[in-house]
């Protein structure tokens, strides 16, 4: 009996001591800030028990805070934190300021820099539901990343409908790597790497494919890229890049709305010139982004019949419309606009011909 008691006490003491000395350090990567805008944010958090240590790509710049909510700190900011095993959300509010940051526990996938070097000089392709948060239902969108060298990539988006390539967009970006706790993160950026960029975690790397994990609109997104044996075919390639990595503003968030300078009648006349015909009646909605410089890209498509159900029209007509829209520069953008904008054009099909465009 005494022996049992001693054994029990010893076990209890050992467990207690282990619990007291154990420190849990977890690495979290910023998914985004402003959850409804999915704004890119380049930061990491290390969580050590109830403390958070913040650092960006420059590990020397540390900040720390306790994982508690504060009614008001010295800057009159109210801070609320919500931490689960997989996510930490921080909400900062004051009378004039509201900002939320969302960090996600990194995936348990370890690599060495030597392994990562294998992708240099190769092209990889993935398929996306939509790009730059521009709505899309019907287009097949492929993104190709060509790792030119250790500091540059060429990114190509190809828009296809029923195996017909409609349009291709290309951009060159800088690339940054970060190795943390043997986990590898990539960022693709223009100019200088800064807090408004996004980390993509490498979670799988094989001879012919790799995967990136990133986060958007509350969700974890896994993009699986497969090795291209040759360059994807291109059609009417345009150089286009978004100014920001976040949800573009809607066209009606401006006064007046961002629209074609010369009105819908002039737009219709321009876009139906030499337009192929199709079959039936219904609607075609072409979505796109107008970047802060007034250039058009990042397409999406929704085809509907007159009952507002999914439909299908001749890809030649869709191609004609997308290529026509891509050339438009006459948008009534506000003089000092700094944001990208989501705009869509809806076309009415009557007996196979385009008869109206709006909104």
């Amino acid at each position, binding site marked *: 009996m005494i022996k049992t008691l001693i054994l029990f006490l010893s076990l209890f003491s050992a467990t207690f001591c282990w619990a007291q000395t154990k420190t849990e350090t977890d690495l979290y990567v910023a998914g985004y800030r402003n*959850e409804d805008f999915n704004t890119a944010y380049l930061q990491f958090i290390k969580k050590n028990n109830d403390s958070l240590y913040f650092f960006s790509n420059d590990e020397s710049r540390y900040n720390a805070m306790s994982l508690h909510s504060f009614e008001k700190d010295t800057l009159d900011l109210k801070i609320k934190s919500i931490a689960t095993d997989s996510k930490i959300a921080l909400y900062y509010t004051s009378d004039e300021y509201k900002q939320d940051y969302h960090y996600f526990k990194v995936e348990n996938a370890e690599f060495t820099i030597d392994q990562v070097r294998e992708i240099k000089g190769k092209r990889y392709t993935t398929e996306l539901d939509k790009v730059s948060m521009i*709505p899309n239902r019907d287009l097949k969108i492929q993104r190709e990343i060509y790792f030119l060298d250790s500091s540059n990539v060429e990114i190509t988006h190809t828009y296809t409908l029923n195996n017909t390539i409609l349009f291709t967009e290309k951009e060159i970006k800088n690339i940054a790597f970060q190795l943390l706790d043997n986990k590898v993160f990539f960022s693709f950026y223009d100019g200088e790497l800064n807090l408004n960029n996004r980390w993509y975690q490498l979670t799988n790397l094989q001879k012919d494919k790799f995967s990136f994990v990133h986060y958007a609109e509350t969700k974890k997104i896994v993009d699986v890229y497969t090795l291209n044996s040759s360059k994807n075919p291109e059609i009417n390639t345009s150089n286009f890049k978004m100014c920001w990595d976040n*949800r573009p503003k809607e066209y009606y968030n401006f006064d007046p709305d961002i629209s074609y300078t010369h009105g819908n009648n002039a737009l219709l006349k321009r876009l139906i010139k030499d337009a192929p015909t199709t079959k039936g009646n219904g609607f075609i909605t072409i979505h796109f982004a107008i970047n802060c410089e007034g250039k058009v890209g990042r397409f999406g498509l929704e085809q509907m019949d007159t009952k507002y159900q999914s439909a299908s029209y001749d890809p030649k007509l869709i191609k004609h419309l997308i290529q026509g829209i891509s050339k438009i520069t006459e948008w009534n953008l506000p003089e000092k606009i700094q944001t990208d904008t989501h705009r869509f054009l809806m076309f009415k099909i009557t007996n196979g011909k385009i008869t109206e465009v709006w909104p």
Partner: protein
Amino acid sequence: MALKKFFLYNILIFIGFCHSSYSQELNPFENLSKEERIKLADKYHDLSQTVYQTSQMHRIYKDSALLVVPDHVEYMQRASYSYKKAGEHIKAMEMLNKAVAIDTANGSTAALEYKAWSMLYYYRDYESTIKDVDKVIEISKIPYNGCHGESCLLLKAQAYYQLSEYKKAIETFDYLFTLLKEQGVNPKDDFLANFYLARSYFKLNDLDKSLFYLQEQLSMPYSVKAELNFYAGQIYILKNDTEKAKQHFLKAKELYLQNDKMNEPYIERFDEIFMNDINLEISKL
């Protein structure tokens, strides 16, 4: 026999368990009272209003509200706005049609009124606009009913105008004016109705009547002057009065630059004019 009973009981327990799990999946808020559900749905709805309308977060909150009160017509209709404004029309119309079906089955026309308005301006589906307006009036028995801030008859008349059925458009405007007079409202105060009435007469080549309504509106304090001058100028061209046409086009240009023109958020109005249209007319003089 005992073995049979044992199997039978087990099967019944299994079915009961599955049914219970399925029911929970169908409605996770079943345990809440009606008042509690409404309160919770209101909370989700309020939260949706704090985030960007076309964002995923907004939609999650809206869906949550509808999960709590699945047949709430107003929340269903308002949930469709996020999709409609983003141009995701299949989903928008799916939600709106459901809201209309529930609402009209209860003898209410609020959702249908909104649909009639959307059909005209967002979908340019003129036949549906006319059909929906007629149904609104049939159910509500109020001929001067409003459809999302505009007179339903104004929508119907514009739909006829867009279908090139100008006589029917004029008849509808005349009927609207009769109703307005009965309500003690001066028909001249309805700029849009008078403007499209003038445009309908123009399309029927009745230039004098068209000019009459345009000039009448030019004398009104709150009308939109650039469009009125522009279309008056076009009539004077057809009447071979180049001088008066020029005056109107130049006035249209001046007012356009002062932003005294049609300027509707979300959509472009029918026959709204742009600087190129004015310059083209001036260049032809």
